């Protein structure tokens, strides 16, 4: 999650934007639920406050759809990207937003990122995000993944590319 927002910030920066990305940790432990935020702007970003009205929401773990209101504060024109198992029916969500799905878990597992029981989806999901976001393109996202990934750079890049291709819009 934190890595995903960092990849996003670096990618947007490569495209000439000013960026700011930050995590919010409940507990600083791998696997525990965390939130991360990113701002992208033409002008230097001075606002250090949290984000309450996002343009995009990215959900890395679909089990969070049950526990929390992922749509809280989302702008009317907002888009939602969810890492969601392929073929599974989407739960009831308000019609007013645009939803995009990608099975990033299967893609990450297929590319051997993380373990088979706990695939790491943060790079694949950013490939998918490049598809739905007006501000960032795929190529800078891939470049940022190469910089950020500690190991298996090309596997991570391939996963992001595949996720970019396979992201689909869904209607709940």
């Amino acid at each position: 999650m934190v890595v995903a927002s960092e990849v996003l910030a670096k990618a947007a920066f490569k495209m000439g934007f000013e960026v700011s990305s930050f995590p919010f940790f409940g507990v600083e432990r791998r696997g525990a639920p965390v939130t991360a935020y990113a701002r992208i702007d033409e002008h230097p970003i001075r606002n250090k406050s949290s984000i309450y009205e996002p343009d995009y929401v990215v959900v890395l773990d679909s089990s969070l759809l049950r526990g929390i209101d992922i749509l809280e504060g989302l702008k009317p024109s907002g888009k939602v990207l969810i890492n969601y198992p392929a073929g599974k029916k989407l739960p009831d969500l308000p019609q007013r937003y645009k939803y995009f799905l990608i099975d990033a878990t299967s893609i990450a597992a297929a590319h051997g990122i993380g373990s088979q029981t706990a695939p790491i989806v943060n790079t694949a999901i950013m490939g998918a995000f490049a598809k739905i976001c007006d501000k960032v393109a795929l190529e800078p996202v891939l470049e940022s993944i190469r910089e950020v990934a500690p190991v298996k750079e090309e596997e991570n890049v391939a996963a992001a590319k595949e996720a970019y291709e396979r992201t689909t819009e869904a209607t709940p």
Partner: protein
Amino acid sequence: MREVMTGNYASAYGAKLARAEVIAAYPITPQTSIVEKLADFVTTGELKAQFIPVESEHSAMAACIAAETAGARTYTATSSHGLTLMHEVLIWASGARLPIVMTNVSRAMAPPWSVWVDHMDSIAQRDTGWLQFFCQSNQEVLDTIIMAYKVCESSGIMLPAMVIMDAFIQSHTSEPVDLPDQELVDSFLPPYSPDLKIEVGKPMGFGSLVKPDQYMEFRYKAMLGMKAARDRVLRVEREFKSIFGREHGGLLERYECDDADVVLVAAGSVAATAKDVVDSMRAKGHRVGLARIRSFRPFPHDEIRALAGKVEGMAVLDRSYTFGAAGAMFTEARASAYSVQKRPVMKNYIAGLGGRDITPRILERIFEDIQVVSRRGAEDEVEWVDVAGLQRRWR
């Protein structure tokens, strides 16, 4: 070259570019990645330094004191409980006149347990004789570390400095940072060579016993050093600007203050957010400004006094509280304003403790409040902002 990086990495790069020769540090959330990054630099040979892993923050500072006494440029970083554990040796470092530079990632003190920002840890060290610089951006963190060495290693100063950034809001926030060329930094910051140091074969005792007939003279000299730091900070920043093209506002950064009716005085990351709020309120016709306390030690008395003579209302935001008194920034700002003939109405706002978000909306309401009380006179000098259970709603 501009790169996207966290405040912690900016801090590590600052120490590397300043060519710190000895680094002794103990990891603590949220400072850990500063130590990790510097350990990386040393391991890969990118930074030629001694990295001393220690068993506590007290030991970290003790190791820095020893290394600095031997003439090495030293660096450490800590946060919160780590900083307060250092308290005793912080005073030793300044009394021994050692220009150590340290990053403090300012974090609330427990209990209640918290890893998020407030300034209680830093403010609790205000009487230790360290210079204290509060930063608002990752760029400023990097630049200030380099400048702090230059300020402090001057023979007229010889005091340590704390470069302070906010937990998570800066330490873990990635934003573009310009990494200056090493050659330029080298031309700005020469190697550290103190007049006096411990040398092999020339035994000396440092910090030895002094009787009542001589103690005050040493403290007086330290006071002169801190006083001289005011000018030194400004001069070093001017030189920094001439080389690197950037500046950060001296002791007190003033933003849209020239024609302001009311100003907000604040330190740390919230000041950056406040600039957005100043812009949006000015667009609606309000004459508001921001004065950012960049150097808390030495305190910008003259600058605050000058500002106080020009405005009707001064809101002072403290991200910590001194129990039994008020916020520390407020009491000092008010003391500075005392000698002004026509004093402004001053009010203290306690906000953002333990990582509570200070939103643009809250800052706007603080400006609105000081506009009202500057006309009417403050009823309460200190108000706690955004506390559940109190009547006033801030969000």
